Each structure stands twice: as C-alpha cells, then as structure tokens.
C-alpha cells in the first residue's frame, strides 16, 4: 500500500491550498444563515426599508411622517449615501416631504431599481394624502380628519398561511447542498489532479512501471485513494451540516439530499480522474480546476437559484452533472421522496460510468 500512503503525503504538501476553499465556504455559510432567520409558519408583511426626510413643519406633513414611520422601516442614513443605498437596494425608496407640503402636497420619491417594494410605499403615500383631502374637502377640520384617517387605515385584512400548503423546509437546506457543489468540485478536482500530475511525471511513472508492484495494483491503490478522499470531503460537509443544524438533519429531505450529494461526489471523483488524464502540468491544473468548478457552479445554479437563470444558461448546463445534482436538490425541497430524485440520480451514475469508461479508454490508448 505504498502508493496509497504516499497519496496522503502528497495531499499534505498542498493542504493550505486545499483547505482555503473550506474556510471560505464556512465563512459564507455562517454569514448567510445568520442573516436568514425567518419563520415561515406565520404570515408577516414584508419589511420595507425607507429613507424619510420631512422638510415641512405643517401639521399634515407631520401626520404623514408619523404614518410612514409607523408603517415602514425607516433607515437613518447620511443624505449623501441615499443614492448609493438605493442603487444597491439596501433601502427600497427615498421619500422627501416638500417644504411647502401644506400647499402643494408634493412628495419627492426615489425608487430602488426595478423594485416592487417602492410601489408599496408610493401607493401608501398617495392613499394617505387622497383620503386626507377627501376628509378636508368634506368639511372636516385637521384634527378630526387625521383621527378618522388613522382609524380608517387601521382596518386591515387578516392574512393567514394556508395549512394545506406543504410545510416549507428551511431555505438554508437547499442553499447548503447547492453550494457544496462548488467546494466539492474544487477540492476533489484539485486533490486528484495534484496527485495524478505528481505520478504522471515522466521520471516517476517510468520508475513505477519497472517496480515489482503490478500496474493493476498501482491503479487500484490510486483509485482507492481518490474514492477515500472524495468520501472524506463529503463526510466532512455532512458532519458540519449535522453539527450546525441538528434539527434539520432528521428531516426526510436532508437525508435524501445527503444521498444525492454522495452520488454526486462519486461522479465528481470520476470526472476529476478524467481531467487529471488530460491535464499535463501543474500550471494549467488550477486553471482547469477553476474553470470547471466555477463554470459548473455558475451555470447550474449553485450560487444563483435555477429559477432565476435564463433558459439558454440552463440549456448549456444540461451537459454538466452539476445541473442534475442541483435540480435534484430543488425537486427534493418540493417533494421529498426517493422517487422524485431517482431519475436524476441515474443520470449522475451514467455520467460517472461515462467518465470512467473514457478514462480507461485513454489509458489503453496511451499504452498502445
């Protein structure tokens, strides 16, 4: 088992490069999940972030200011930052009540790009002013108009989440399993290629050829190394998942996603072996690894949900195993049963078989 042991010695040399992916991944996971603590079992209106500035001292302007304050999430930011915050969507709209509001009823409004949230704000303001004017025009004085208005605006419909709807799995589940598409690919391809490039060096491979260990045993040991390393990575991420979300790990969908990711890991190992047969030098290695891992992840929806990708992008990504892996994750969320993911699982296994066959063929071809 000299080769097998040596496999891990080579990895040890590159450990920093390999682990950096895990570190970045964990940082992102922690950052993401801490900002997503939404409870989906009861209904709540969306929180709209608004920048508000009132230039008017009039009573009606103050009443409007109070109304906006009560209904939206007012952000205290510097005047000079408003445009930036709008552009980046950190606030949905900026509202400025004109200095002469009591005469002209003018409100200056800026919306974040293509945001639906801004529409809510705009409608609410128009609604408020229109109603106030209706009261005023019908002979009500300011105090009673505002009082009645407040009462009117407090009548709200009851909104409920249907109990017939499927209980939604926490969204980090899907996020986590889609995201490991990238780290698994990057790390497995990196490790397998680093080891194979080392063994494929002319001097080393010639020396190995004349060694007393039969070549079948050599390739068996290396293959074993690849599989073990794949499983180690997979197991690590599953372990982290279970530790981070002990409750979620009992869900049926989590278990199915684990199976899905295991099959995917095996597919990636066979893919990595194939890549290592094509890549000759260490220089081009990280280039190929980055293109394959980043490309697959971007195109198949590991970072951005598949629903948001264009049809062309999805069509292109159908040639990649990642597409089927991620599609399976998304389908499991909708309907967590083994039958749901079975067809795509078969496709992943077909990919693995295909990659292995091509690798074997390349070996034979080289020998002859």
């Amino acid at each position, binding site marked *: 088992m000299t080769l097998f042991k040596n496999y891990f010695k080579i990895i040890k040399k590159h450990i920093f490069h390999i682990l950096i992916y895990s570190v970045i991944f964990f940082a992102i996971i922690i950052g993401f999940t801490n900002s997503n603590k939404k409870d989906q079992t009861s209904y709540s209106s969306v929180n709209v972030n608004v920048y508000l500035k009132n230039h008017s001292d009039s009573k009606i302007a103050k009443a409007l200011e109070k109304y906006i304050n009560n209904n939206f999430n007012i952000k205290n930011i510097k005047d000079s930052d408003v445009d930036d915050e709008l552009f980046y969507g950190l606030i949905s709209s900026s509202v400025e009540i004109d200095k002469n509001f009591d005469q002209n009823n003018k409100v200056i*409004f800026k919306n974040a790009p293509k945001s*639906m949230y801004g529409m809510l704000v705009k409608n609410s303001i128009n609604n408020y002013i229109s109603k106030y004017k209706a009261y005023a025009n019908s002979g009500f004085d300011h105090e009673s108009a505002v009082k009645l208005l407040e009462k009117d605006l407090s009548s709200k419909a009851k909104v*409920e989440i249907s109990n017939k709807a499927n209980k939604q799995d926490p969204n980090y589940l899907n996020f986590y399993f889609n995201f490991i598409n990238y780290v698994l690919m990057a790390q497995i391809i990196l490790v397998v290629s680093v080891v194979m490039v080392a063994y494929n060096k002319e001097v080393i491979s010639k020396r190995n050829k004349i060694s007393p260990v039969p070549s079948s045993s050599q390739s068996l040991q290396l293959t074993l190394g690849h599989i073990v390393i794949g499983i180690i990575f997979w197991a690590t991420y599953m372990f982290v998942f279970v530790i981070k979300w002990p409750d979620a790990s009992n869900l049926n969908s989590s278990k199915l996603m684990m199976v899905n990711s295991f099959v995917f890991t095996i597919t990636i190992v066979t893919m990595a072996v194939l890549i290592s047969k094509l890549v000759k030098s260490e220089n081009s290695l990280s280039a190929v690894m980055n293109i394959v891992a980043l490309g697959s992840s971007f195109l198949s929806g590991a970072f951005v949900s598949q629903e948001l990708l264009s049809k062309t992008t999805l069509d292109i990504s159908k040639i990649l195993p990642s597409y089927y892996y991620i599609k399976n994750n998304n389908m499991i969320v909708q309907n967590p049963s083994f039958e749901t993911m079975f067809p795509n699982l078969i496709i992943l296994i077909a990919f693995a078989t295909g990659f292995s066959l091509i690798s074997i063929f390349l070996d034979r071809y080289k020998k002859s």
Partner: protein
Amino acid sequence: MFKHSFKNSLKVLLRNKALVFWTLLFPILLSIFFKLALGNIASGDKFEKIPISVEKTLLEDTFFLEFIEQMQDDGYFEVSKTNSDKLLVEGHVIAHVKEKNHIITKSSGIKQSIVENIINSYLQNESTVINILKNNPKVDIDKIIKVDEYVTDVSNPDMNLLNTFFYTLIGMQAMYGYLWGIEVMYLYEANLSTKAKRNAVAPTKKSISLFASLLVAWIINISIVLITIAFCKFALNVEFGDRLIYILILVALGALTGVVFGVFIAVSNKKDYEFKNGLGVTINMLLSFLAGMMVSDIKIIIQRNIPILNKINPIANITDAMYSLYYYKGLERYVSDVIWLMLVTGGLLVFVVIFTRGKKYDTI
C-alpha cells in the same frame, strides 16, 4: 538600450501563457459566467401582474366586484374566480381572497404584501366612505375613493446593479496585474532568480532596463483591462457610461497600481515564488470580496461603517469610480476615488523604493 530591453521584455512576458491566462482569459471567462448566471436577476424584482383567486360569492357585492376589476385593469392583479383555495394550494396563484377581510397565502413575501396592501385599501375606503357620508350624505362617492398621484418620482433610470459586478471584476483584473509586476522583478532582483543575477551583472544600466520592463508590464496590463472592458461592453452589453476619457485615465492608473502591487509583493519578503503568488491571489480575493464582487452590499455596508477601508482598497476605488461615472452626473466622487488610488499607488511605490534601493551583493 531602452528599446532592446523594452522589446525583449515584451516578448518574455507575453510568452508566459499562464500569466496571459490568469490576467486576461480568466477574468473574461468570469465575466461570461456572471452574465449567464446573473443576467436575469435584475429583472427578478420587476413588477408583473400578481395572480390571485377570489371567492365567487364575494363578487356579488358590486362595489367589491368593481374594485377588483379596476385593480385588474390597472395591471395589479390577474384574477381567477373560484369556490375554494384549490388554485392556491396547487401553486397557480399567490393569494386567495376568502372574505373581504381574510386572505390566505402559502408564504410571506413582497407579492403577498402587495395583495394585502391593495385589499386593505378597499377596506379602508369603505370606512372612509361611511365616515364622510355620515357627515355629508350628498357627497360624490367616486371623489372620496379616488386616489390621486401626489408623488413626484425622480428615480434615476440609469440603474442596473448587475453592472457593479463587472466593475469589481475589472478592478480585480487591474490588480491581477501584480503577476506582471512579480514577473518583472524576478528578472531584475538578483536575490530572486538566476536570470536576475545574469541581468545584474550585464553591462547595462539597471535602472533603464528595469524601467523599460516595468513600462512593458504596465502597457500590457492596460491593454488587458481595455480588452476586457471592450468585451464586456460589446459582447455582454455592460454599460460604462459615455465618458471614455475618464475611464481611460482610471484604467491607466488602476493598471499601474496592479503592477506596483506586484513589485511590492516581490521585493517585500524573501519567500519563494509560489508563496508570493499565493499571497497576491489571497489579498486580491479579499479586496475583491470587500469591494462587493461576491455580495454587492458589502461595499455599502463598509461605506456605512468603516469608510476608510473602502478608500484604501484599490479594487473598491476602481469599482466606485466606474460606478460614479455611470450613475452620477458630477465628477467629484470620481476625482476623490482617483486621488485615493494615486495615494495607495504612491504609498506602495515608497515601500518599493525603500526595499530595493542601493542593493549591492558581494555574493549571493
């Protein structure tokens, strides 16, 4: 002699395929990935008619029917009339209006909130009408419930968040010019490579040949960034505004910062080539992250809390300068970004001079 060094450095550097890949092809590939993956995101928030279902019996009330039809005509709702919440459960509609004051949904979200808001406005109108009619029975109801436009919308139409990803990418690429900087220093710093030893003992004036080589690195880096900008603009439809000359100034300066950064990494420590390269990538990735390449909000969050961090981050400066040329009419912000970028470059240069000047070796 200048010409000789210039020509040969150009050849040496351009023949390095790994460098050309990482500095030119890799960012272009990333830009294609960005476009394919994020191209649709900007339209994700755009308003489209919201499909809802309404209980048939509710529409026997002519006022409510009129209201719902009005909302449909105004482009807010796509209404289906049903007897149950079947369409909601099957996922064809976003919300089901069961009673005038009772809505059922499957989850919370912006579309659900808009439905809630509009149905609320009906209930509130009812209450207003009753109040006013009590006081003044002759009043015209249509006038009471009419909502006028009081809001003056001055939103900037030049807004596509997707563009900023490309700006940061270009900032990152300019800084990737550090690879050229390192490469050049390996040709001239005698303690770094054999070639440099040979160059050091060559009967040429080192300052001239070093200057020629750095000039080559700078020109290559400028060209590479310009190629990527052209690619993004013409192939991927990324908007850069129309103030070309300012973009050129920014690119030239950014490309210089990248090369100087590489020189700084090369001469500031005695570690091997691999380490220096890794250090460059790591710092570059960190700066790109802080400038918003992975999560665009980061840049604004930093601006809110630790603004100085954005000022000394060259990638954030380049991103911000490009963004301000695209989004703002004035040039103040651009000028401030350029000045900070100059300061950072100048600072790096000072260190480089301290590390490299007056070196003489008896033996290495």
